């Protein structure tokens, strides 16, 4: 009833290729966007902005980047954190060398640096496969974090080795730095995330996306049907690193405000990987669902004892927290290895035929 697709006829190829061929999907999308653009910002307080809304968006963007590489092109990467770092440090250098530069432009350019590094570390993927490649991406992870630590030029020879975001304006509005308001930062991030997602959806469902999926499912077979593996894999590394780099720049400039090298260390990479896998590999929607779960869960778990007036000390909560996240990962994998996105797909299927089961 609610999700009835009968009666929606497509009379042209264009209509059939539309982003949302089913009308209800489009309506749902509009509702989600309405929430994201209007209702959340109006109701959220500072804490919700800083601890939930902004990080969810940034993490889902990072997971989207990883998902393109791992979920669509089948190349497992454990180095996401370091590529985020490349984006962040590139953006920092751009901003300090050209203080007049528009932040949006700087972030867009800093993604290019990440792309270059990503492609360089992607070249071995032509010879190395599977877990060997995964470990090889760890080489990037550890080497780059070490470089962030040792290459003093990157952090302008600052004694503490950390980078700090200066106050920055865009069109007269403070967008970054300690005095920027959370709402402005949220809208900035939301804008970037929406734009990148739009492009990502269209890349992944187009020719390039199909090429990636062929490589993922069996690269030898893909090569035999005439797909250029070198090109397909390197494009995947490039697009993925670009998105990851942009998310890294957002991560530091629009959320954290300062960063030290070990912020980009392996736990960050794993966090993004959790999001991508729990959300669902090979899906765009999954990244958002996964990020909501992984980012919001610890925050909520921390609040629950307070809400119910339980007096558990902070350390115990944290221990339980880690255990719950671990259990949850295993649980989701056992119940639905294709992640939360598949959950939604199943719900949608059910809704289409509801209330009449087969």
């Amino acid at each position, binding site marked *: 009833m609610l999700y009835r697709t009968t009666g929606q006829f497509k009379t042209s190829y264009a209509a059939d290729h539309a982003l949302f061929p089913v009308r209800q999907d489009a309506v749902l999308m509009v509702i989600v966007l309405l929430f994201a653009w209007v209702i959340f910002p109006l109701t959220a307080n500072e804490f919700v902005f800083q601890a939930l809304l902004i990080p969810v968006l940034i993490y889902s963007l990072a997971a989207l980047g990883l998902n393109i590489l791992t979920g669509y092109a089948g190349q497992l990467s454990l180095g996401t954190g370091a590529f985020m770092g490349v984006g962040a440090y590139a953006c920092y250098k751009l901003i300090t060398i050209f203080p007049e530069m528009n932040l949006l432009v700087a972030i867009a350019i800093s993604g290019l640096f990440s792309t270059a590094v990503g492609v360089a570390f992607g070249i*071995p993927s032509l010879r*190395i496969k599977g877990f*060997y490649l995964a470990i*090889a991406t760890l080489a990037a992870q*550890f080497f780059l974090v070490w470089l962030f630590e040792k290459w003093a030029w990157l952090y302008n020879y600052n004694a503490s080795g950390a980078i700090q975001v200066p106050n920055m304006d865009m069109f007269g509005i403070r967008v970054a730095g300690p005095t920027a308001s959370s709402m402005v930062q949220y809208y900035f991030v939301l804008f970037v995330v929406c734009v990148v997602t739009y492009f990502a959806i269209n890349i992944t469902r187009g020719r390039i996306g199909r090429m990636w999926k062929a490589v993922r499912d069996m690269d030898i077979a893909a090569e035999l049907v005439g797909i250029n593996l070198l090109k397909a894999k390197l494009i995947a590394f490039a697009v993925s690193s670009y998105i990851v780099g942009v998310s890294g720049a957002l991560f530091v400039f629009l959320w954290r405000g300062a960063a030290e090298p070990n912020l980009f260390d392996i736990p960050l990479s794993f966090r993004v990987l959790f999001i991508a896998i729990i959300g669902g590999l090979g899906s765009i929607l999954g990244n958002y669902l996964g990020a909501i779960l992984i980012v919001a869960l610890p925050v909520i778990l921390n609040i629950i004892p307070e809400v119910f007036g339980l007096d558990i000390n902070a350390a*115990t909560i944290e221990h339980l927290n*880690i*255990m719950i996240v671990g259990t949850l990962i295993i649980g989701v994998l*056992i119940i639905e290895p294709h992640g939360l996105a598949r959950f939604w797909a199943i719900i949608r299927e059910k809704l289409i035929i509801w209330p009449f089961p087969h």
Partner: protein
Amino acid sequence: MDLLNNLFIKPFQDMVSAPDFLMQVIWEGLVSGVLYALIALGFVLIYKSSRIFNFAQGIMVVFAALTLVGLHERGVPALLAVPLTLLVMFILAAAIERIVLRPLVNQPDIILFMATIGITLFLIGFGELIFGGENKVMITEDLMIPTGSYVFEPFGGFVLIEQKDLTAVVGAILLVLVLLLFLNRSKMGRAIRALGDDHQAALSVGISLSTIWVLVWFIAGIIALATGIVWGARAGVSFALEVIAFKALPVLMLGGLESVTGAIVGGLAIGVLEKLFEIYWGQPLLGGNTETWFAFVFALIVLLFRPQGLFGEKIIERV
């Protein structure tokens, strides 16, 4: 010119001019290499028999060591604490098999890999909940591990060899020998290898998948305990130990995911090379701390020439 000198000539001059120091560096490298090899061995065993890339091996090391020390703290004598810890590791192995692995049979590799990360997180939380986060002292003396040191004085300098490091090396060699004997001579060991070669063929001749999985996870647990004792004796037992699991990954790359020999040779090679690189190139030229990445980059370069590692099985791809 100066750079070339620093890169290619000076390090070797340094090595020759202080041979006792060089020997010490190599010894230190070998000792860490033995530990890397032990962790890698745990990975290899599990990968061989089930194609699971077991990320939890590192935390199993911590968990085993903590259980041992924790039991001892609660008044269990050391020599009884060891078998009790082994019992705990067995229960852990059985639980992992029953709860995590069995429902996930036949899933893609990456899903199983993620599940082991889930196990890692769970064990971190669980371990800290029970044993607390404090740094603990390994009960070296109670386990009758000697703690003195030998000093040799070749070439007018000195080389220091700790008895516990020596014990670690000897213990590791014995462990590996027993393991190889078990894998090659016993019925169970052959079953493990059969399962590694071909799952379905092994199942069809009546090898029980779940028994073997519990067994390999238990053996990995034994190796974890050995590693935990040895490493804990060097640096104390705490959750910071967990990061050494990462050191085993380049060893796997270098040696090959399926090869026991590879794990040992790779471990020793990486242990020694990263130490030499750090001391003679890393510290003077690159500002130190190169040990975090050297092994990975080195393994990556080797992999470009041998994509399955030095001793790994040749990858045959079919469409």
